[in-house]
């Protein structure tokens, strides 16, 4: 019996929300196609997340533990995944569409002679092949695509499916590999401060745009994010001016986010930015300009001055949380 394999990103031993969504979809597709469902974790201590993965239905967890996975380099990951795919007889491998996954998908496909459907929002079996729906043309359109043969690699945008539990007692297979020395070497990671919510995986995102011009406005955005437990994102404009770090950039050239709640503060909604957030479930837009294109995609639009709207919003959220 071949396998539907789910790739799990578990920084610090905790599977990301997007990984659990992908595992949920893998479980559903395994049931529909008569396959086994398994998860693969590459980590310094990969077995640590096995319990959680079992809760979401992973019958087998391939745990590949190696010190190499402490660093975000693609070569060891490609090697390990190719090995696990062969062991598991993987017909279909689902990935969360993270930067780390984008970094390894192409090489892995060639190494394992797999067809790839990257960055999809829907995936299913379609008459002997795998069908998917994926945003193209700067997220202006959806393309219905199809992959033939086996195996097929599919990466899914976060928020494409709802994660759901289906507990099983997982079999943990500890995979030990002798990884080739990586030709690439990591020098440093200038990252977001520890404890910050990861943007791509966040359930709530507060994003700042051109309207957030000064320290006072930035402080308001940060306070709003804090009361909501949200990650902070930004448009390209305020990343370029240095008000927010490059890691915060949402959009076609930054991160694609699809949280349950996205709040855009002073964001006009240029096409490049919208391409990175239009998949959000609920969108709140706060902007002074009533004609800003962000209002075209907003679930709730507030035309107003952020200096008065955001403090009022913070107060209301505090009240709601208290009450």
């Amino acid at each position: 019996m071949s396998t539907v394999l789910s790739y799990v990103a578990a920084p610090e031993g905790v599977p990301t929300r997007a990984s659990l969504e992908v595992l949920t979809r893998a479980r559903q597709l395994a049931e529909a196609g008569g396959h086994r469902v398994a998860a693969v974790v590459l980590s310094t201590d990969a077995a640590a997340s096995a319990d959680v993965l079992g809760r979401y239905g992973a019958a087998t967890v391939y745990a590949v533990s190696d010190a190499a996975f402490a660093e975000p380099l693609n070569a060891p990951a490609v090697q390990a995944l190719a090995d696990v795919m062969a062991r598991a007889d993987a017909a279909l491998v689902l990935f969360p569409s993270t930067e780390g996954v984008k970094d390894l998908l192409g090489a892995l496909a060639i190494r394992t002679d797999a067809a790839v459907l990257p960055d999809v929002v829907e995936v299913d079996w379609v008459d002997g092949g795998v069908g998917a729906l994926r945003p193209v043309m700067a997220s202006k359109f959806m393309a219905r695509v199809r992959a033939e043969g086996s195996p097929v690699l599919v990466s899914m945008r976060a928020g494409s499916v709802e994660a759901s539990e289906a507990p099983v007692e997982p079999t943990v297979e500890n995979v030990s590999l002798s990884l080739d020395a990586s030709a690439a070497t990591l020098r440093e990671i200038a990252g977001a401060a520890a404890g910050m919510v990861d943007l791509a995986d966040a359930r709530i995102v507060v994003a700042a745009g051109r309207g957030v011009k000064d320290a006072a406005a930035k402080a308001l955005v940060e306070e709003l994010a804090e009361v909501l437990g949200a990650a902070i994102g930004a448009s390209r404009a305020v990343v370029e001016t240095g008000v927010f770090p490059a890691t915060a950039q949402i959009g076609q050239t930054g991160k694609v986010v699809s949280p349950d709640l996205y709040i855009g503060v002073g964001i006009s909604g240029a096409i490049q930015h919208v391409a990175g957030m239009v998949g959000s479930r609920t969108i709140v837009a706060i902007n002074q300009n009533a004609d800003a294109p962000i209002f075209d995609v907003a679930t709730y639009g507030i035309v107003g001055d952020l200096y008065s709207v955001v403090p009022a919003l913070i107060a209301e959220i505090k009240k709601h949380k208290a009450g």
Partner: protein
Amino acid sequence: MRFCVCVKQVPDVTAPIQISGGQLSYDAGRVVLNAYDASAVEAALVLTAEHGGEVDVVLVGPERAAETVRKALAMGADRGTHLVADGELDSAAVSSLLAAVASGYDVILTGKQAQDSDAGLAGGMLAERLGLPYVTNAVGLAQEGDAIVVTRLGDAGQETIALPTPCLVTCSNDMNDPRIPNLKGIMAAKRKTIDTRPATDVPAARVTTLGYEPLPTRAAGRRLDGEPAAQAAEVVRLLADEASVL
């Protein structure tokens, strides 16, 4: 160092694109050099201007895409290769065609993805076919002796990674602002050689596009009026009761 930059001609995604009967249509004149690839060309030109070397560009695409090769030459690339191929090619096929002509370089650069398909696979595939170490989504590129030092935007932050040459890097457009060719560049480009040949041994596509669809329509949004306090109260109520996200 010798650079090879793989480029693609794509429809201008900022121009109007229509959809009808599952197919996309746009004005024939509205095709451009993929913006991410333009950043890759720019990066190669900056590095060779500083450290010496040369820049070749390679394109796989229909006959009319020759103008895009010419555009890269007008920016300052030295030579072009145009593998003429019509119809839809999947990333695997493109990387296979590129692999046949892109070997023997110190550094291969590509855009991190094409603006039309937004797949982002061809770079990694090409690196694997050529057995090269690679890094995707670079926002910074430097040359240190025989090595290339890449800053990439990763999940946890900006990762700085050193690659020995030969290697491959896919570039984000956040890396630089590509130059607009000047008149001298445009004139010089005409006298540079483009090696044009038909693409042969095109692998059968395993991934096909069945058709295009408009984005799912979002339910019409609601504007919240009134004073800031009233707006805030209303949006919090809606987020809690209607959207169930608080």
